[in-house]
């Protein structure tokens, strides 16, 4: 028996999620402990698999039910997909540590919370690892269906509204994706992504473009692309604090992954990259513009998160190797920094009724650690040296310079100024405004502080020594852009029509 296997990313969380109600009957504390052990195992799994991929230089292909692709479903753990799966599982562990004491009082509530967190993690990793387009659809459904109840977890009126909005938009996304898959299957008779990628040219032009648009639309909703992201700010701001971090570091990552796979591997048409670039620019400009006007902290963070997704789309839309490497860097940063901001931000507005930015004036003295870490996250995300955000933005700017996209450089810099304005407004309020005394500051529990400190340490370390992690981004970019290699590894060597 192999100890580490990509299939365990999905199989074990499902197994534990089904078993968790029974564990709860044995001992109440088990519903908190067991998910943590699971996340630790997933990280161990990542380390073993990743070192194998790095040493052999080839992706690990796992077939399911004993059928080789394209007959059966397969998982592809490459330097690209494995890297994202690794980020998601590490963030899963951190979210678990952060929310270990969450809902300590009510048993039923915390049981459901941990089941949902495990399944949203398993779903996001499944989306990233699968090599089958219908299987990808199934995992997107798992992600969506575990996100809806998480948004409405506090059972307030606003939470229900946000969740319902997400549900309607998500249902529309599912229909669009399913129709796109139907079109592809009707023409090519296969659901395996490698085979689709190989034979995409056989599709009639008209059907091919329609399928692309339908899939782009559906995946765009999951990736929070403007103007399909109306659900996102509500969902981010209504969900419990750690869930905001889950959305930023897991579901959004799964969403952007689907778009990248669609554009890079499945279709690989020039118009696709340009569309991605264009949508990225619009998403970036609009979201950051709206973020500037937000009065509520979590909504501001949500719009800033959408802006980051736009930046990601731009990086991947440029489609040069330097830009894709920058994109991987931004993806990593977004997961780490945005989670830190959500973790610390939700403690800053813990007791505030409306979660307004002006409610946290003067908290720099009341909650020194939380406020400092929030400030660090804010400085990192706008890209101040020597924090990790600086290197990501710098490499994106250099990549656009290489591609002669001077206007884009100007645009990104202008948007960065906007970012600086609204983040510094908060930091300024934290340290230089007088405490109103209206709201009692709420001290973070020790486990929450630990998580925030770990994230801050990552930001500073990567900022000082970007070389530590830079190679992973380069390998990931190589694995993503080498489509022929992907097809060759997945399909059997004697596959007809392999060139």
């Amino acid at each position, binding site marked *: 028996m192999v100890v580490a296997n990509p299939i365990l990313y999905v199989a074990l969380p499902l197994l534990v999620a089904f078993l968790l109600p029974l564990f709860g009957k044995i001992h109440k504390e088990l519903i908190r402990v067991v998910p943590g052990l699971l996340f630790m195992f997933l990280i161990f799994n990542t380390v073993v698999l990743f070192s194998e991929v790095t040493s052999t230089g080839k992706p690990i292909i796992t077939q399911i039910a004993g059928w080789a692709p394209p007959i059966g479903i397969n998982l592809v753990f490459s330097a690209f997909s494995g890297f994202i799966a690794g980020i998601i599982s590490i963030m899963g562990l951190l979210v678990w540590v952060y929310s270990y004491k969450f809902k300590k009082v009510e048993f039923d509530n915390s049981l459901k919370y941990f089941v949902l967190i495990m399944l949203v993690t398993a779903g996001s990793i499944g989306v990233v690892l699968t090599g089958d387009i219908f299987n990808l659809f199934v995992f997107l459904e798992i992600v969506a269906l575990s996100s809806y109840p998480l948004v409405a977890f506090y059972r307030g009126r606003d939470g229900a509204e946000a969740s319902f909005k997400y549900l309607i938009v998500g249902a529309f996304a599912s229909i669009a994706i399913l129709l796109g898959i139907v079109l592809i299957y009707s023409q090519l008779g296969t659901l395996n992504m490698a085979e689709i990628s190989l034979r995409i040219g056989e599709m*009639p032009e008209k059907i091919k473009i329609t399928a692309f648009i339908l899939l782009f639309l559906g995946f765009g909703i999951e990736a929070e692309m403007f103007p399909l992201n109306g659900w996102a700010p509500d969902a981010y701001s209504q969900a419990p604090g750690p869930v905001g971090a889950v959305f930023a570091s897991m579901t959004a990552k799964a969403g952007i992954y689907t778009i990248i796979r669609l554009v890079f591997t499945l279709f690989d048409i020039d118009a696709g990259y340009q569309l991605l670039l264009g949508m990225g620019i619009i998403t970036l400009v609009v979201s950051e513009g709206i973020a500037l006007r937000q009065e509520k902290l979590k909504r501001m963070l949500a719009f800033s998160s959408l802006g980051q997704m736009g930046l990601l789309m731009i990086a991947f839309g440029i489609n040069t190797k330097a830009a894709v490497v920058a994109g991987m860097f931004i993806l990593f940063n977004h997961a780490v920094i945005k989670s830190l901001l959500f973790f610390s931000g939700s403690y800053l507005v813990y007791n505030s009724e409306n979660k307004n930015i002006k409610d946290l004036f003067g908290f720099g003295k009341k909650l020194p650690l939380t406020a400092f870490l929030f400030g660090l996250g804010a400085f990192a995300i706008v890209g101040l040296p020597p924090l990790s955000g600086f290197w990501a933005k710098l490499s994106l700017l250099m990549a656009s310079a290489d591609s002669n996209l001077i206007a884009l450089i100007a645009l990104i810099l202008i948007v960065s100024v906007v970012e600086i304005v609204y983040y510094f407004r908060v930091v300024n309020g934290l340290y230089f405004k007088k405490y109103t005394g209206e709201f009692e500051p709420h001290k973070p529990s020790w486990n929450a502080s630990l998580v925030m400190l770990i994230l801050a340490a990552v930001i500073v370390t990567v900022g000082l020594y970007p070389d530590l992690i830079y190679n992973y981004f380069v390998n990931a970019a190589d694995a993503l852009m080498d489509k022929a290699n992907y097809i060759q590894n997945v399909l059997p060597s004697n596959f007809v029509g392999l060139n």
Partner: protein
Amino acid sequence: MKKIIIILLLAVIGYFLADIFFEIPFGEDSMVVSKEYLDKSPNDLHVANTVTSIVVNFRGFDTLGEVTVLFLASTAIGSILFRRRKVHTKLNPQRNAPHASRIVQISAKILFPLIVLLGAYVFIHGHLTPGGGFQGGVIIATGYLLLLVTYRKFSVSHSSLTWIEAIAGVTFAGIGVLGLILGKDFLENFLPVGTINNLFSGGIIGIIYVAVGFKVASELTGILDTMLSIKVDSEENEQN
């Protein structure tokens, strides 16, 4: 005006989509993988119902995902509405309302075991005849729905539903992991396949479909029970 523009826009999009979808040839042979399914299902797996072998074996991973989606749906309904379930008491006026008429009560009593039997038959024979775990599970849930609407005081024990749900789910995922432990692939068959058309044929496919049947039946029954108790709650709120 805005509405008219939206309708026109939708009509245009609908027209073009329909145009594209009518271009898909009907019944023409562009199948690549499905030919393999038709060939391998009776010959390698010894399963008479090809649909079942596709759902549980070739694309069994998708089915595990779909079972999880159902599990999530029932968890979600439970987690959003769970506080209201406590209203489920004898003091509730709706619960004290008279039962359905005598005729309905007696017929429900006669029909219920038959419905459950049919459901069990459908999922136990999922690999031989049309139907399977999902269909059988839904049939059993309709049996419980009949009891829930006939007898006002009838309620399902959520604790036993949880047990059935958990054991069934663990059977499905556990069989998959057992394959891994035995050195095969996840969800790969490790039992003898038997003779085609016998009840004990197809290896793990039959076992998985029975587990799916139990899981679907318990989850849908749980959802129905939760939903019915909410209705009671909202009416009570109106009275207050």
